[in-house]
């Protein structure tokens, strides 16, 4: 599902104009992004946790010539779903 379809789906469920839904969605995503950049984590009941995680530097070995590189550390965004989220996914298979 694309962002546009997601906006339409939310509009229908919330009985809102798509333009208003898009505005709220953009604001929500901006807030989440800002908080993640600040180093906070977003913990929501019935959803899960959006968090940042630092991957340490590592040595990368190229397959063709076995050259070794020092790869820099990286801060990535990770998502850990909670049990309610998993249950909803499980409904798919049943």
């Amino acid at each position, binding site marked *: 599902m694309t962002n546009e379809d997601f906006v339409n789906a939310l509009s229908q469920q919330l009985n809102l104009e798509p333009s208003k839904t898009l505005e709220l969605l953009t604001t929500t995503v901006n807030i*989440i*992004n800002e908080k993640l950049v600040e180093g906070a984590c977003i913990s*929501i009941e019935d959803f899960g946790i959006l*968090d940042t*995680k630092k991957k340490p530097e590592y040595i990368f070995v*190229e*397959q063709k010539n076995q050259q070794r590189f020092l790869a820099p550390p990286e801060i990535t965004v990770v998502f850990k779903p909670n049990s309610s989220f998993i249950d909803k996914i*499980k409904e798919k298979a049943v």
Partner: protein
Amino acid sequence: MKEEINLQQLTLLLTERADISRQQAEAFLKKFFTAIPEILSKENLLEIKNLGTFTLTKISDEDDAKAAKEENDNTLYFKLRFSPAETLKNSTNKPFLYFEKILLNEGVSFEELTVVEEKEEKVTAEEILIKIDRNKAFVPNIKTKQKTKKKPIARWMPVLGAAAVVVALIFFFMSTQRKAQALKINTEKVTVKTITNETPEPDLAVSTDSSQTPNPLPKEPEKIQLAPDKTLRLIALEKFGNREFWVYIYYKNKDKIKNPNIVPIGIELIMPDKSEYDIDASNPQSVAKAKALGDMELKKFQ
């Protein structure tokens, strides 16, 4: 300690930024977060602009899936992955964004670092393996899969869960005991008051027999002198378990602190009583309330 943003705090922020009522913001956020798994349970992909893409793929070639298939045909495996959007990825990785891979000369070694072969490096996002036994539907069974190493976190989940329950029970038991003790003291105080009202010399009667009655004097408020390396937030963290409670220290000492951003070193601060401001670090609502008040106070000085 990492700041944790919950639905309540997110609602407050959305209310401020989008200029809508709190109810509207809460309804939108609840729908937003519940819609994601609902959509994923019907479709395999959900892209949210500037946030990222959630993908759910059915797997058939995993070793675990193969083994399970031999035992039971009703077991299904799904892989859930969240790939952050490029903008989010770059902004969270800002400190290391311009770092590049450096070729290592022969003889240079970093023994403590992990060595990753080229073929292994492809997997970057963390994946969640979801096992579904159609005979036992809705029984959560989560395995976290990262790169090629298997981490049996799920195996420790029941132990950690049991430990959490025991800790919660201990806290509950201690708080009920404390409440019972407080009630006992209150009833004793009431008894003392009635006795002293009947006696002609109440002050003397209480002071001469202090060993038998509890001390009726109110507790002296705690005072702290602000050290050069301390801030209101640090003191709040030490005394009350969360930085957000700084605002109550500010309220208690408002007559001495003109601007909470500039607190003079060496100033004597009176510590507020926990009960006076409903200070409870274990209660997210109490923390959220303090944060909202703190933000409101800080805005006045911007």
